């Protein structure tokens, strides 16, 4: 049985806390507020999606959580420890798959790269790489260069790299925003499937409302400047989810409508 079904509400453990997180750039007249006051939590094994109008600071939020950006105020706490640098149990998948992979080396070496400094036996390392490439169905392409693969396949390499790293929490920043609709659906299902196999907690940033409702246990809706959490929408759609059947459910339609209204109200009117 999948871990999130077995879990009782009383036994949940909060993995990630984002407390009053604020981030601004510059100072004085030129100050730009990316995040005003963002607070939410992610529980063990949970799939949390963050949606918001474009330009609301979703990527900034994710980079702060990843320890890549220092927060201006507030904090990110991972299992009771404040995040100041990229934590070891966290992996990241960015939108720009083509630019996050090393073009000069093979798919296999790209997946292997983050494992180099982990204290692992060589065989264990190779097993992790082989397993994660098998999980994203790319075993046959391990000797190829990333640029020899299609966009969707490149993003699967990035996912395999994250899986091989054995994170307990996976951060994804609009990972499927630059692939076609068909591939996007396949990749969404792939993420749900590997999450099931690997039992990881996922924080997933997207601007796509359907995608957020389809994937998440909870959807965190951000408001636009000043950016804070507008509402956290629980998604109780049955799992496993299905691209066609789940999206036909009245509950799905209702939820996506609800989230869409929250997001639309935040859209800056185009003059």
């Amino acid at each position, binding site marked *: 049985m999948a871990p999130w079904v077995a879990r009782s509400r009383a036994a949940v453990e909060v993995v990630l806390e984002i407390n009053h997180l604020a981030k601004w750039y510059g100072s004085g007249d030129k100050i730009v507020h990316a995040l005003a006051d963002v607070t939410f939590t992610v529980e063990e094994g949970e799939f949390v999606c963050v949606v918001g109008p474009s330009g609301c600071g979703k990527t900034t939020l994710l*980079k702060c959580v*990843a*320890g*890549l950006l220092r927060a201006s105020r507030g904090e990110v706490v991972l299992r009771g420890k404040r995040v100041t*640098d*990229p*934590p*070891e149990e*966290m*992996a*990241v998948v*960015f939108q*720009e798959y*083509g*630019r*996050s992979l*090393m*073009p*000069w*080396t093979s798919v296999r070496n790209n997946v292997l*790269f*983050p494992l*180099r*400094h982990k204290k692992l036996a060589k065989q264990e390392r190779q097993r992790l790489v082989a397993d994660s490439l098998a999980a994203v169905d790319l075993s046959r392409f391990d000797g190829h*260069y990333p*640029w*020899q693969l299609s966009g969707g396949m490149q993003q699967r390499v990035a996912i395999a790299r994250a899986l091989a*790293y054995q994170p307990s929490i996976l*951060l994804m920043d609009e990972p499927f925003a630059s692939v076609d609709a068909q591939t996007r659906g396949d990749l969404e299902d792939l993420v749900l499937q590997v999450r099931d196999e690997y039992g990881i907690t996922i924080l997933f940033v997207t601007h796509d409302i359907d995608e957020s409702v389809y994937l998440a246990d909870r959807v965190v809706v951000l408001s636009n400047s000043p950016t804070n959490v507008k509402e956290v929408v629980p998604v109780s759609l049955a799992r496993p989810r299905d691209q066609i059947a789940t999206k036909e459910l009245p509950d799905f339609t209702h939820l996506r409508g609800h989230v869409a209204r929250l997001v639309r109200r935040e859209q800056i009117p185009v003059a």
Partner: protein
Amino acid sequence: MNGRAYRVTKIGAEIAVPLAILLAWQLWTAHAQSQFFPRLSTILVEFRDLWLFAQFGEHVVPSLERVALGFGIAVVAGIALGIPIGLSRNLRLWAMPHIEWWRAVPPPALLPISIVLLHSIENRQKIAFIAFFCVFPVLLNTIDGVRGIDPTLIETARAYGIPRRERIWRLVLPAASPQIAAGMRTSLSLAVITMVLAEYFSSTNGVGYVLLISKNTYQMAPMWAAIVLIGLLGYLANVLFLIAERRLLAWHRGWRAAEPL
């Protein structure tokens, strides 16, 4: 142009045309009987007598050694300096005016001072002289290459906790390598130029020295033979470099062809 026609044209351009020029040279010099322009056949005989391989050890080997050492030192220094300068905006701010100034100084202008400062016309002075001028193309290209690295690549590595040292060694260096190679290629031809210059100015051996002595003793055939040799050395060095680059940076060609940049 289809593949076959292209190949035929390429062979023609690389072999037939130079051969035709040489033939024209031979015919014209045979006819003109000029003491400044010896016949091709005379030059070739001289070339064989001098360089294959009577004086090869005495004059060609020292020249090659100087080029190799000067170029090698320049590459190592150019990359070692270029990476930190490329990574740091502050360092660039301080270093760039000096780099731009020194690279604007033409090599002959620094020849006398290099001899005075190093108290020598021996190898040390020549290698230092060659290395000094060859450093700039590598240095500037390394700086540019390092600056041009995609931030996503570095951020991904940081997110995976890859230490700074390893990021530089395994990300920054390979990512900048196509541009570093372009700089090295420029430096390589510059190394041959500065070698001849240094040897012509003050030396006791080397192909530049042969050039000087032949000129001073009014011997045109050995002078032309030296010119042919220098041209051949530069040409061969470039060909070898291109072969190595083609192999080592094959990924770059493929990547550039695949990515709509």
